[in-house]
Each structure stands twice: as C-alpha cells, then as structure tokens.
C-alpha cells in the first residue's frame, strides 16, 4: 500500500507522471495547469525523473512535440488548459488520428472572451469530437490514479489512442487533498513498459501521416471510430485492476443513491461532490433523488448510462458549457439522444451552471432540481443569470 499525504492535486499529478517514468514532457504554461509542468520541470532538473523536458514556445508546438516523440516510441506527457487547448486543437485532432498514445492533463477552464481563468468545461467540449479518450475526475485521488490508468490504456496495443484527463481548474488543481501515493512496485505491477507497434527508426522504415484520397478517407475515419469504441473494455479492465491494487473502484458511470430514485441528476467532474451533498439533503427531506456521475465521456458508455437512468421519471443534466445556438448543451445532447428510444423514457432537463468559475453550492443544486421539475420546455436554462 502507498502512503497518504496532504498535497496539492497538481503536484500529486506531476508526481504520478514522474512515477510513470515518462520519456518526454512538452511544457507551456497556462493557468490553472501551470503547477503541473512546473513540478515536472523540478523533477527533471533534480534528476528524480529521467525525461527530456521540452519547454516549447507554444501549445501548438507542445502537441507537435508530443506527436514526434510518441512516434519515436517515447512515453509522452503534456498538460494545458482553455486557450492553450484552442491553440493546439489542430494537432489534438491529428494526434488521435495518427494513433499516438499521448497523455494530457487538461485543467478545465473557461474559454475567452471575456478572458476568464476559472473553471468550466467549455475547453474540453471544443475538442469533444477529436477522437481522444476523455475522462473526468471528481477529486484529487481520482486525478492521481487517472495518470497511471491513462498511460496504461493509451499504450495498450489494442487501443493506441491519446487520453485527456479532465481536471476542474482551481476547484481541483489548486486544492490540497489527502492523496494515497503509489509505490514504485505498484506502478511496476500496473503499468507495463511502452511497446509501440510502429516507431520512426531506420531499422524498420515506415511512413507516417500520409495523405488520404477520397477513396480512403471514409475508411480511415471508420477505423478510427471503431478504435475508440474498442477502447471501452480496456478502460474498464484498467479500472478493475486498479481496484485490485488500490481498493479504489472506478467505473465509466457511477450511481449514488439512485435506487428507487424518481429524479436523477447527471453531472461530470468536481461538481459531483457538490451534487452528492444536495442529494443527501433531499433524501433526508424524503425526496427520491439520486446522482449519476459520468466519468468516461469518450467513448460514451451508452449502455451504462441507459442502465443507470432506467426507472427515473426525470433526469436533470448539469452541463458546464454552452453550445451556442444549439438545442441543448453538449452532455444533454447525448443523454437525450441515448434515452429517446428507451421504453418509459424520462424527461430530460438541462441546466447549464458554473460557467467561468461561478460558484455552485448544494443549495443551488436543490434549486435547480426544483425548477427543472416544473419546466416542461425541454430546452436548456442557464442557472443564476443576474438580470
């Protein structure tokens, strides 16, 4: 068993990356992910981590460096946030299409303008369709564990895809939490060395990144889509074995007090802790309310979601991003389309909350549930807008 320490989540995440013996870290600062790359630079400078630390001149180059080093067969990590992700977006899409198992910690932050350094999910939703595995974390321990899990899944030859770990900016990155650290032996047991299928090396000549004529592009896209779906059992297996090792059980969808619930709140990330407090309170008041935490956002665990929401009359999806001019916010879109063909489908309500760092309390969540239940419009509402 590892030791438990009170430590800032960013620092713990960087320590986990160090324990994974990464070979290359590409780094460009942006709040609120800065502490992650700062601590990695310290680990490299002190010799605790034997990796090439590449202090690039932009996020676009950060992801490009990651593609190059991953293609060379090196275990590769980077971290960014909001505007940084926007700048690297072009290469984010290419990284998954070229099947590079890069791991990136995304400290979720609102997009400009107005400039905001605070948390919501608009950055990650921008690259929702980029073909990366995307997971969300609720607390520091989850972030820490996710690093080992992500490398293992990404580099699994059955997967070979990049993984994005979503960590709520400030709400998680900057808080000090008790975290149970892994020992080297645990990592050795859990994470095998990276053995890429193809690498750039003169001993075996390959061409990577060819261009695709119309005769081939559709097939390439189909193959990529299948690859992402096929990662699902590997992701689950990774979590199951992590449970054996640590006693902490993760799954793509997690239910909290959903037995017999008429109303279910569905959310992602650190807001789930807030929502669970609200659920506790409402249950005390005799209301049949439960919470579904969605941990795996891509590939979307469609069947798990159906199962988790079965029996509910009303579902309230808490989104943390706006999809301007759309029928509903991104997560709700998925939930509504998943549930549409279900027998006894629930009413799916959509509230967008916590944009750009706006605080959400358990009482707010209770209010949201109350207002959602009387709403029959089935569009979306943004919570707490002052007029």
């Amino acid at each position, binding site marked *: 068993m590892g030791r438990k320490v009170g430590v800032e989540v960013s620092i713990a995440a960087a320590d986990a990356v160090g324990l994974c013996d990464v*070979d*290359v870290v*590409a780094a460009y600062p942006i709040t609120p992910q800065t502490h992650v790359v700062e601590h990695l630079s310290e680990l490299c400078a002190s010799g605790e981590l*034997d*990796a*090439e630390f*590449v*202090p*690039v*001149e*932009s996020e*676009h*180059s950060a992801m*490009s*460096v*990651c*593609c*190059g*080093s*991953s*293609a*060379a*067969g*090196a275990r*590769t990590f980077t971290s960014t946030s909001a505007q940084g992700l926007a700048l690297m977006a*072009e*290469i984010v899409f*290419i990284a998954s299409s*070229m099947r590079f198992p890069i791991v990136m910690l995304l400290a979720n932050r609102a997009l400009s303008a107005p400039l905001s350094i605070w948390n919501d999910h608009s950055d990650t939703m921008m690259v929702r369709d980029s073909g990366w595995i995307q997971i969300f974390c609720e607390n520091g321990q989850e972030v820490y564990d996710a690093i080992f899990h992500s490398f293992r899944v990404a580099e699994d030859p059955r997967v070979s895809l990049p993984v994005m770990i979503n960590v709520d900016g400030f709400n998680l990155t900057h808080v000090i939490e008790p975290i149970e650290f892994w020992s080297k032996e645990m990592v050795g047991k859990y994470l095998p*060395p990276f053995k890429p299928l193809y*690498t*750039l*090396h*003169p*001993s075996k*000549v*390959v*061409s*990577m*990144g*060819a*261009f*695709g*004529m119309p005769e*081939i592009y559709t097939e*390439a896209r189909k193959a990529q889509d299948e690859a992402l779906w096929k990662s699902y059992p590997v992701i689950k297996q990774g979590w199951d074995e992590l449970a054996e090792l640590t006693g902490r059980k993760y799954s793509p969808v997690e239910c909290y007090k959903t037995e017999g619930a008429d109303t279910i709140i569905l959310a992602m990330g650190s807001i789930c802790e807030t929502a669970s407090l609200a659920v506790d309170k409402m249950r005390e008041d005799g209301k049949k309310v439960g919470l579904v935490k969605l941990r795996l956002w891509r590939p979307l665990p469609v069947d798990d979601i159906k199962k988790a929401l079965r029996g509910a009359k009303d579902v309230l999806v808490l989104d943390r991003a706006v999809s301007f001019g759309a029928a509903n916010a991104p997560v709700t879109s998925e939930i509504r389309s998943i549930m549409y063909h279900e027998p006894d489908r629930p009413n799916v309500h959509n509230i967008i909350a916590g944009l750009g760092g706006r605080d959400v309390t358990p009482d707010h969540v209770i209010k949201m549930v109350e207002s959602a239940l009387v709403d029959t419009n089935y569009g979306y509402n943004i919570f707490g807008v002052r007029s």
Partner: protein
Amino acid sequence: MAETEKKKVIKPIKNFSLEEYISSGHRACQGCAEVLAVRHVLKAIGPDMILAMATGCMEIISSPYPLTSWNVPWIHVAFENAAAVASGVESGLKALRRKGRVPDKDITIVAMGGDGGTTDIGFQALSGMMERGHKVIYVCVDNEAYMNTGIQRSSSTPFGATTTTSPAGKNAPAGQMTWKKDMVAIAAAHGIPYTATACPSFFTDLQKKVQKAKEIQGPSYIHILSVCPTGWRIQPNKAIEYGQLAVDSGVFPLYEVEQGIWKLNRKPKELKPVSEYFKGQGRYRHLDESLTTEIQEKINSRWKKLLDQCGEKTEK
C-alpha cells in the same frame, strides 16, 4: 588525416550515394527542382535518418495512402509544425537512447518545409526549435510561393513576381510589392552553429553543405532555392538553368554561416543582369524597365553587403 578530410570536402562527388531514398514514381510535376533538392539532401545524409515534413508539394506528391515514395522513416503531421515534430522526435530518441531502449546509433533528424511552411506559418515553431538547440537539420525548400495550394504569395516570394494572390495591376504594378524575407539571416541571428543557402543546380555544393550540417552539434538551417516550373511559368526542362541564373545573377547567392563566420561559396566574376534571369519566366512578364532597374539596384546593394559580410574584396 587533415589532408584526406579536406579532400573529402573538396570532392564530395566521390562520396555520393548511389542509393535513392526518395523513389521515382512520385507525383511531382515534370522538371520540379524541389523534389530534386529533396533527393540530394537525402543522398547526402544516407539511410540513418528520420525526416519530419511539413504539408506542401513534397508531402502531397510522395504520400497518397497507401503509396509512399520514402525509403527513410518519414512523418508528416501538419503544415506549420515540422520543426516542432522534429524537436519531439529528437527529444524522444535522446531519452530512449539514454535509457537503452533503442540501439545507440547515430540518427540524423531532418525537418523539411516549403517557404510557406518555413518563413510564414512555421516561423514560430522553427524559431523555437533553433533556440532550444535541438540537433536537427532544418531544410527549407524554397520555390518562392505556396505551390501546393495553387501558387499563392508567401513572404519568400520576391518583389516583382506575380502569384495568384499577388497579381500585377494598377495598384500593384510589381505584383508582389514586398521584398523577400531574409530567412537565412534570421536563422543565423539565432546563433545556431550552421546556416547555408544551396540550390540543386549546384548539387555538389548542396550535398557538401548537408553533410556539414550532419556533422554539426546543434541545429542547422539550409535554405534551398527550388525552381518550380509550374509556378514560375517556365518550360519543365529549364529548372536547372534558372537555378544557375539565380545564383549567377546574385538573386540567390550561395553562402554559408558557420559558427558566426560568413563565407561566400560561389563568386561569379561579374553578376549576370537580372533581366537575363527574368527573361522567359512568366511570373515576371509584366515588369517594365523601371521596376527591373529598381530590382537590379537592390540586388547590387545586397550583393555588396554580402561580399562585405563574407570578407570578400569588392571591386571599386
């Protein structure tokens, strides 16, 4: 020992590889000197290399999936990031070699881009790569426009050339109304150990420079004028000739900057008039005498400055 080394440099043709690392059957236009430049670069380096390439003509003509023209490990990621991808390859290999996970073999990392992918959109990534000191040879194959997307101007298009986005007209009599960006000086100003110009019309010089860059510790930059018959509106059999004319008219002088020392590699007794170089090139067809004179004056003054930088005597 020193003697043989010297010989090697003076007569590099003896060391020329008979191997081809970019195969025939690629889809470049007839008479393309850009692909010729690429061929010579690869020959000069040999098989133990990895090439990161930017989007552009050379990528498109060589890699329609599932075909490939590359007999060396090759990667293309995007238009503006060849230098950053090469930085990643170099860093990855460095770590893996140190940890004993790949054979400890000397592998030359090369990044390559067109003038657009180098002097415009890829400028930042290139600057970052040079500043960080990655051991990468960066090769710019300069055909003086964005050819892959249909002959649009770049910051490397010379003053006076027409392209599809710098057409000549009443308000723009010269076509391109700005002067070619001096990318070589900018690269040299990064303080990297080796910078050079080259042209496949002088292929022994080109190969020699690439071989030099290969031996140097740290980043190097080679800027190759690559005549494009399609974009320059010339006959496909004229690429070599126009390359020679560009060099001998002082439009594109051959020189190198090694550890801060500038050196001229070819000094024509007398520069050929630029009008001779312009003749027959469709992209310069609209130029009148006064514009030609303006360009000639600029060439003369630049040539003088270059002779000065290279410590060559200038005739009064």
